[in-house]
């Protein structure tokens, strides 16, 4: 093993990669045009050749693990296969070379894609209007909650609270807080669903909305959703849908029909756009018609002659992104929807759910897990018994899975489950892959019993061994100092 390399260490004085030909226009004296006192003395960037750059980043890429490398059952993240044709389409120069302020009549292609995508997403979710402006799921949450805030203010209501279940993604309370609301937690019942009685006690005239994902983070469908919706709406509060888990229910049930007023979708999850190592994503937000006038500006629209950007949104929250959102990502989601159509999307949800239930069945005997439970596209098991009996934690299991060539599941989430492994196989994985993952877990289970130290010191077969997070947090080396 060696140190992970950095480009700075390849730098040698005088090496060049990219080089422009000499200027065709007259040379200038920047000290005159910009002013001597505004010029910088030194800019310390690497001096490397083109080959150095290509080799270095190729080497770094090989230290990564993506969906193309193997199974990536990261719960709540929907790491499905990212179709190659979508990449090719998004790279077409007609899309990539278009300036956001180019005249609309010369930008009809992208405007058409935006307009169509808004409508396709509305049909898939049962909502009326969509904005594509938010750049990620959390960005969509913030947008959605600000829309609710503006709507209530416009009605003259000063509601101060947002209810969030204890199983919710951490972004939910953080987004609500960023929108200026106080957070009220509501607990889950013994089945893992929202405790209806507990909910009733916290819903009052100060509540602006409940944020909910359905199926929830345990992979369970909130079957009382219509009653939940009524409890909220009877008190004048709204219902917000965190679309992180939409991959379970496309074509089967729609948030709009469940009573949700605002939804955000993660196009990088359900609609197959790649995660890019942590972004770019797209967090499109859909609303019922009564909230249309509060959406961010502009929306893609169409009149008799052409597509255009509609800025006529009377009570708009404003803008949440400098331009119109991550349009390059939207394109890939659009291509995905056009590839699959209604039947294909429904089938994706069906197979995703089949895969999760099958995998759960294959491994449930090893874990603290509700037996014979029906999950949707993902499920949660607990390594509590591994910890108590063998002193092995969820983290150790995750690290050991890396040695077997799998990306581990999400660990320690949701917070209401001890030593949680949250597993989401997705529909693009084959039975063979699921079987080999289950086999690997079983081998690791045996190792936990026989040779637990192998787990505790894992991983062993990765580009680097277990990293010291405490040292990183205490020393805070956040840039190269060499």
């Amino acid at each position: 093993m060696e140190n992970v390399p950095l480009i700075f260490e390849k730098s040698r004085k005088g090496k060049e990669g990219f080089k422009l030909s000499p200027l065709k226009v007259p040379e200038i004296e920047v000290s005159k045009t910009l002013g001597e006192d505004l010029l910088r003395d030194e800019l310390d960037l690497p001096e490397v050749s083109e080959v150095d750059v290509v080799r270095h980043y190729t080497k770094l890429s090989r230290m990564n693990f993506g969906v193309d490398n193997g199974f990536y059952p990261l719960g709540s993240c929907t790491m499905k296969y990212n179709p190659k044709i979508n990449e090719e389409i998004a790279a077409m120069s007609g899309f990539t070379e278009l300036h956001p302020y180019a005249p609309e009549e010369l930008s009809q292609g992208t405007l058409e894609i935006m307009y169509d995508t808004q409508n396709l997403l509305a049909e898939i979710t049962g909502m009326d209007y969509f904005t594509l402006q938010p750049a990620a799921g959390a960005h969509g949450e913030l947008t959605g909650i600000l829309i609710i805030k503006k709507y209530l203010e416009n009605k003259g209501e000063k509601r101060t609270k947002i209810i969030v279940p204890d199983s919710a993604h951490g972004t939910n309370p953080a987004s609500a807080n960023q929108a200026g609301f106080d957070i009220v937690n509501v607990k889950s019942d013994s089945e893992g669903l929202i405790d209806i009685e507990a909910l009733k006690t916290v819903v009052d005239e100060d509540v602006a909305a409940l944020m909910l994902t359905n199926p929830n983070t345990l992979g369970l469908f909130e079957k009382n959703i219509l009653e939940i919706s009524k409890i909220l709406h009877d008190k004048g509060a709204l219902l917000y849908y965190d679309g992180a888990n939409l991959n379970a229910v496309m074509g089967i049930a729609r948030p709009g029909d469940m009573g949700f007023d605002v939804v955000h979708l993660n196009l990088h999850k359900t609609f197959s756009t790649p995660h890019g190592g942590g972004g770019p994503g797209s967090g499109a937000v859909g609303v019922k018609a009564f909230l249309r006038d509060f959406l961010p500006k502009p929306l893609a629209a169409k009149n008799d002659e052409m597509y255009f950007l509609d800025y006529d949104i009377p009570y708009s929250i404003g803008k949440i992104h400098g331009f119109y959102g991550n349009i390059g990502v939207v394109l890939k989601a659009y291509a995905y929807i056009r590839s699959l159509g209604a039947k294909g999307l429904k089938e994706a949800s069906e197979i995703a759910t089949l895969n999760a239930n099958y995998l759960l069945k294959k491994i449930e005997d090893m874990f603290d897990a509700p037996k014979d439970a029906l999950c949707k596209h993902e499920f949660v098991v607990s390594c509590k018994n591994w910890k108590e009996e063998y002193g092995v934690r969820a983290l150790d299991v995750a690290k050991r899975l890396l040695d077997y060539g799998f990306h581990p599941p999400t660990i320690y989430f949701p917070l209401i489950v001890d030593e949680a492994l949250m597993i989401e196989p997705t529909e693009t994985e084959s039975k063979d892959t699921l079987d080999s993952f289950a086999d690997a877990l079983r081998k690791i289970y045996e190792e936990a019993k026989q040779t637990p130290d192998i787990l505790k010191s894992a991983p062993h077969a990765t580009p680097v061994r277990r990293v010291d997070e405490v040292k990183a947090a205490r020393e805070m080396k956040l840039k190269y100092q060499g």
Partner: protein
Amino acid sequence: MRYIGHAPSQIDEMLETLGISSIESLFNDIPDNVKLNREMNLPRPLDEIELKRELLNISKKNKAADYVNFIGAGAYDHYVPAVVKALVSRSEFYTSYTPYQAERSQGTLAAIFEYQTMMARLTGMDVVNASIYDGASSLGEAILMACNIKKKNKVVFSGAIHPEYLTTAKTYGFGNGIDIVSSVYTSSCETDWKQLEKLVDDNTAAIVISMPNFFGVIEDVKQAEKIAQAKDVMLIVSTNPITLGLLKPPSDYGADIVVGEGQPLGNSLNFGGPYLGFMGTKAKYMRRMPGRIVGETVDADGKRAFVLTLQAREQHIRREKATSNICSNQALNALAATIYLAYLGKNGFRDVAYHSHANTQYFINEAKKLDHIKIINPKVFNEVVVEVNDLDKKYQTAIEHKMLPGLKLNKFYPEQKNRLLIAFTEKRTKQEIQELLKVLGVS
């Protein structure tokens, strides 16, 4: 079956393992009255050949994509080298998730660490995060950060900030009742420092300037530094990173937070996104900064490795007490920026800045010789405001010549009639600039 992993017989085997006869029964927990019970109304599925043909046809409706582009205003037509495109297309990078499992994510982590380093050097800031959604939203996050640090709820903007950044910042401020006021700009398209100073009161957390400003003008940044110091408010600077190839880093004039649009660094125009917002600050504010950060550490063998750090600020740990709700970055765009900066290197990057600036100066000097183009303020970097007679007609002529001559300023400023904001990158040739002069310079 598109993108499904199983053979049909395997689906049957799986159902058997589960002891059920159909996939539908897996959805028995969903009450009938919330089920859709009809097929979604979507266009029929396309095979790959049909899809590619259709999307290629749609892409061709974006006629502007082929035009010679003089529009800037926050998104710039710099050249994206083949090296950048090839390397970010490696699927180990683009099909991975957030690098939570550090041992198998060193590629992304090391690249972000390099990004943080290069952007810190460019901006002069002590610490830079792994990136935010785009330039406008990074400014939105910056005002929230400043208000949290100062425990105040007003921010004063220069009147020469990108108008859509101002709108975005107001949306970010709306949630927590932050008051955003904007000063005017002068007739020479500069910040009106006197008025800006007057707007700063005891409740003000920060002032925000853009350098160069929205109109391309090099601001008198010493004024900003003076006001920030005198009034004990934070100075937030929004900047175009390409200009930092020649200009002093904002740290030199007292910036507390530097933000900006990273698109010019190796990212295509893409009709406004995906881009990346960068954000840097001083060491003392590090823990108040939103967004991911990568730190250096060692692995169990004592070898250098990288890992996400300072996570206790973030939403997955602090929930509603987090510094921000953000839980991603624009990782792939930041990777493109990193490779771009590494590949261009010290001299190449300076050259791109210099050529962009020289092209701008050439245009200004030639325009001065013509009667019908008025340069509003020549003290600019890569973008300049001009006033011409019959703008609409000339704009149309340019379009007929397959040229986008700039941004009509009346889009944002009704009072700025007959004015164009024109941007120049290293891609623009002498001939293209001459053609633009010809179109705008006719009587």
